[in-house]
């Protein structure tokens, strides 16, 4: 295969020939994808196109039947579990916001904060000064300082989305996978989220899966269209929108 040559590229994330099937149904079919360091990429596609499965493969939740997934030029993600992949520097925001409902906003961020992960050190560790400063910083970025002692369960839907983004920031990954960040948000919130993501993109690579076309347009980044588990088209939003195949399967008449 051409893996050795590809591995020497500077790509941050590299998927090649990835296939995943569930009971004969191919959720991903020979999918290839390349994300450069510092890039922000939008992934669109109809339901069942394999967007979430792709995220699952990258984060180690699902093992591909065949294919290569390489991160940062050396780590073979198909061999690692979720925790190792997360430690390597891949963060994920879920489609349905999942925050820790019985923890305060601050504790949610503390848990996400990069660094301390081993159970025996956590038994005796108290948050350091640097950690507390970082928490304050993130709380102000996501504008949730006043709510920091509120339980996750009491947050509104939008607040949970923000908290999740805050947790991603706290995790400080090299690559962020963001699944439908503006689902259920108002137009204003959507616009703000786009701003935040662009801000985040200055220091992190980001992959955004989204349905909302106006949001994708607002991001103004390269778009990959998935269909039936493989890449249908790639390019700017205007380019892919003009592609007749994309129009056929996704954008509609």
């Amino acid at each position, binding site marked *: 295969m051409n893996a050795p040559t590809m591995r020497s590229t500077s790509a941050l994330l590299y998927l090649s020939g990835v296939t995943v099937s*569930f*009971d004969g*149904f191919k*959720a991903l079919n020979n999918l290839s994808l390349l994300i450069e360091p510092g890039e922000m990429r939008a992934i669109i596609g109809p339901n069942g196109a394999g967007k*979430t*499965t792709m995220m699952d493969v990258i984060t180690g939740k699902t093992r591909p039947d065949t294919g290569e997934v390489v991160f940062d030029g050396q780590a073979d993600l198909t061999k690692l579990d979720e925790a190792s992949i997360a430690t390597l520097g891949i963060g994920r925001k879920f489609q349905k916001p999942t925050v820790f409902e019985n923890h305060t906003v601050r504790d949610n961020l503390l848990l996400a904060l990069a660094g301390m992960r081993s159970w025996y050190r956590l038994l005796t560790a108290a948050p350091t000064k640097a950690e507390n400063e970082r928490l304050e910083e993130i709380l102000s970025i996501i504008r949730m300082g006043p709510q920091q002692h509120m339980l996750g369960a009491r947050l509104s839907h939008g607040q949970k989305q923000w908290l999740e983004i805050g947790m991603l920031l706290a995790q400080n990954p090299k690559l962020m996978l963001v699944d439908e960040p503006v689902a259920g948000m108002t137009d204003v919130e959507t616009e703000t989220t786009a701003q935040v993501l662009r801000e985040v993109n200055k220091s992190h690579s980001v992959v955004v899966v989204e349905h909302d076309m106006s949001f994708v347009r607002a991001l103004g980044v390269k778009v990959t269209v998935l269909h039936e588990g493989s890449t249908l088209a790639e390019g700017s939003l205007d380019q892919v929108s003009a592609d007749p195949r994309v129009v056929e399967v996704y954008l509609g008449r």
Partner: protein
Amino acid sequence: MQSLRPFSVLLSVVASLALAGAALAADLATLVGNLTSGGLSEREAAITALAASGEERAAPILEALAAGQLYVRTSDKVAVIGKADGNRLALVDAISGSPAGNAVEADLERVRVNNRLRGTIEAAVGSLTLMSPNAKVRLSAAESLFKRRDPAALPALDQALAAEKDPRIKRAMTEARAAVVLATADAPAAQKLAAIGVLRDRADRDSLGVLNAAASAASDAEVKAAALAAAGSIEQTLAAWQMAQNVWYGISLGSVLLLAAIGLAITFGTMGVINMAHGEMVMLGAYTTFVVQEVIRTSAPHLFDVSLAIALPLAFVVSGAIGILIERTIIRFLYGRPLDTLLATWGLSLVLQQAVRSIFGSSNREVGAPSWMSGAFQLGQLNITYGRLWIVVFSLVVFAALILILRKTPLGLYMRAVTQNRPMASAVGIRTPRVDALTFGLGSGIAGLAGVALSQIDNVSPNLGQGYIIDSFMVVVFGGVGNLFGTLIGALTLGVVNKFLEPYAGAVLGKILVLVFIIMFIQRRPRGLFALKGRSVE
């Protein structure tokens, strides 16, 4: 000498049994008279004559004589057979065979025999029974001769063999002859080799014993080798039969597990509901059978043979209805909280057990087997009881019926729809609460059916269900949750594995090993043997 006489007498008996009956009875009296009077040499002649008479009573009289149980009553000189009955002897008239009171030994005079006479008697008895007009007697004589392997019986055996028409008896006699030949030290090697061939074809535990004995006793190297080879081949055959028997026991156990687990496979597998009271649904089915049989015993005894047929639908309804009640009052409030469901249904199982204990008492209840379920038959060297056979058949029928319900009926369609996508199912107009209740009712009802079957092989007590709940879960989890065929394979596999372990490890240790095996297995394949894959699993 007189070797042809019994044969001709036998023929005449067969030809004119009815005509000659009276004459022969008179003849018998004379012969017995000769036997009990006179000296030892006359007695020997009388024995031979009696044996030659072909008389049915001849055999018991001669056997009694050999055993020292033939007496002459001092008071009336009647020949009697006396068997010890406490301090006294219970008497049977030697000629008629009818009871003749009892007596103390002092009032009787024993007809004495010596060792030489005993030999004569034995040969005479052997030939007598071998020549009996009754096919059953001949067969059992041949079979007993096979076990006794008495060389003295060889001439009589040859004679009987020549006359025998029934192929089954003929084979039994040939085998007996082979056994006798092998036990006779000075028989020619050629005959012994032929005998070894006969026994190798018989291939059972008894012939193995004969062959082993012959091999260790043989002086001829060729005979010894042949006997050893035949014994080896029999051992293989026996091992194969033993394995088949184990497989059968395993299938039988597996079918019981299947019955107990199949309802669980529905409630746990398709609804994700952990029903710890599932065993109690089985128990209720068993008690329904008990009640049905009680009613039949008191009011319609002639219906006893169909009691299970009556109990089946009733058990289904009783357990099913209680299942629906449980679903509506408890379980539906706990959907999405499997661990709480587990605890609540455990509590429920305690309540149900105690309720049954209060009503029926805590002791075991008698549930009878209808006539068509009792007894056993022999298939090759397999011993198969009808009860177990019917349970295997029944479990497969229930399984097939369930598959049909799931695939072909609207309820099955709705059930699958609700399992796969609850919101969508309710959006297209399926009343999901009703489907839940019916599904749970179906699972519980099947447990009730299992209870009817289990009442035939297990103690019907309030604890009946408890013994099955862990096993059932193991089967469902092992087979793969949500996959009925997995449950079938899982049940049969666990049943067979269990029975194969038992001879080596004992029943309890075998069970422990199986549990440990499943614990390890679940850890390797948490989703079971036939796992559903896909995003919906999470």
